[in-house]
């Protein structure tokens, strides 16, 4: 019997090989975003902003208008684009170093202005692109290139930064959710959250962010399967899944 495929490659995904490591989460997320934009029929109305990080050339894989942004400034760039084209859908795609460390000011203030934007926040608990240094989201005890003994708050290396919870406190933010892509059910959940975050923008509800716990087997020094399990067993303890905030923004 011939296998039947439920899913087709989304048309907005160029059919090219990516530069990502095996088991990396970016591929799944790129696909979800392409799928969602297609489902919402937004190809001609979408502008994506890629970060500096492993997803720096995300625009090579998507077939809609995109801009690069300097490290951490994606939400400032997105603000500029959106204010010029309020009727277009503008989203950023950012890693944890990009969004929560160097770009924290831009993140907080875009959210606090209530910019009508969608942000996909990829939390892989490390700096992937630069070789696996500590990120603001690195777990306590997690070994990285710059925390060789494991992240230790007693050494003033800090605690995992819960950006989503912090952003949920801001009145300009309408939707905050955290999901993972550790199994097909979670991928489906992630799809639904990101779709909601895009729809919120069309409905002019304010700032929406979806944090996705995403595997980085290379830096974590795990097999792809082990990495998926580590998300479920370790990461979700620090970063619980679910909707953190879902409201109308009062203006």
């Amino acid at each position, binding site marked *: 019997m011939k296998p039947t495929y439920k899913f087709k490659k989304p048309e907005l995904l160029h059919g090219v090989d990516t530069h990502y490591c095996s088991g990396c989460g970016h591929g799944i997320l790129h696909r979800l975003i392409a799928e969602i934009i297609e489902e919402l029929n937004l*190809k001609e*109305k979408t502008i994506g902003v890629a970060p500096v990080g492993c997803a720096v050339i995300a625009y090579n894989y998507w077939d809609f208008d*995109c801009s*690069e942004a300097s490290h951490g*400034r994606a939400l400032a760039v997105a*603000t*500029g684009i959106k204010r010029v084209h309020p009727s277009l859908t503008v989203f950023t795609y950012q890693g944890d170093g990009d969004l929560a460390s160097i770009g924290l000011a831009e993140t907080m203030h875009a959210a606090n202005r209530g910019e009508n934007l969608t942000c996909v926040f990829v939390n892989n608990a490390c700096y992937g692109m630069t070789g696996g240094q500590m990120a603001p989201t690195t777990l306590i005890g997690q070994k990285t290139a710059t925390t060789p003994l494991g992240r230790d708050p007693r050494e003033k290396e800090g605690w995992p930064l819960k950006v989503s919870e912090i952003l949920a406190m801001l009145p300009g933010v309408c939707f905050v959710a955290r999901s993972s892509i550790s199994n097909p059910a979670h991928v489906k959940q992630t799809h639904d959250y990101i779709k909601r975050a895009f729809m919120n923008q069309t409905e002019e509800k304010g700032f929406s962010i979806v944090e996705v716990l995403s595997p980085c087997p290379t830096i974590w020094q795990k097999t792809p399967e082990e990495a998926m399990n580590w998300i479920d067993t370790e990461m979700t303890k620090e970063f619980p899944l679910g909707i953190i905030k879902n409201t109308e923004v009062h203006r």
Partner: protein
Amino acid sequence: MTGNEAMGEAAIRAGCRFYAGYPITPQNELTAYMARRMREEERVFIQAESEIAAINMVYGASAAGARSMTSSSSPGISLKQEGISYMAGAQLPAVIVNVMRAGPGLGHISSSQSDYFQSTRGGGHGDYFTPTFSPASVEEAVRLVREAFEVADYYRTPVLILADAIIGQTMESIPLDVLEKPELRFKKKPGHKSWALTGARGRPANIIRSFFLYEGQLPRHNELLSKKWEKIKKSEQRSDLYQADDAHFLIVAYGSQARIVREAVDMLRNEKIKAGMFRPISLWPYPQESLTAAVKKIKKVFVIEQSLGQMVEDVRLTIPEKEILFFGKTGGEIPEIEDVVNFVKKHIKR
């Protein structure tokens, strides 16, 4: 109007649709002016959380196809440099106003010309230049802002207005026609801004980027940019002369210093000393052609700056065979007319 406000109005008349800025003296009047006027015009004004955010918002607005501007003063311009470098790389036009104050560090809010190197030598990282225009009056500031938008769009690159704090703060009247009937140098080309991000409708997707990962891409891109820098060097040199026709001694000065030097030239002429002035208006590209022509019959060249000597390097590069004498004051102190006169007299007696 103050120079700061006039530059804001000039930007609005030039079709600036997007402004983002962060407060810093001595350019605050410009930000405040834009806050009021951009709203009236139903365009975008954003008080950004920092200069870094402001330049990146301008990056986004420019990528979206809008004429965009930001303004700041020296320390803030330092913060914008990464963004300016990205814009040069990604070929995004914008106008960036630097109303200079004295440094290094927090320095002083008083007028200074110590950002010449930063402005004319790229400023940020990487192989690029930023066309830089320096006004000597409020009226000229208005003309240059207007022109800066055109130059930025034509060449697809960020353009700097480098104004001394004195120009930003001075109140001067401006002939109405300067604001109302701007002379346009460049005709809009067909397919104007077809590269902009507007949604991929009926065309392939557009990408705004300065990152070129694969072998040979970046050298090719930089070669392309290099052709642009060469073209700008040829076509965008601007300068002005005063009493230079029969001069034996030429004083080179830009911005507010040129006004002091102009008076010094008059005083020297009263004493039968044939002095003249050369005033660069474009600092990059440096007006090498006109300076070379202007010094043909000149015995000595004087350079007056409100710095420890920055522009003087371009003078030395342009006319190395001439005797070049530098006088400057640093840290926000202003050379007086008499200082200039005495300096020239001291060196021509010998």
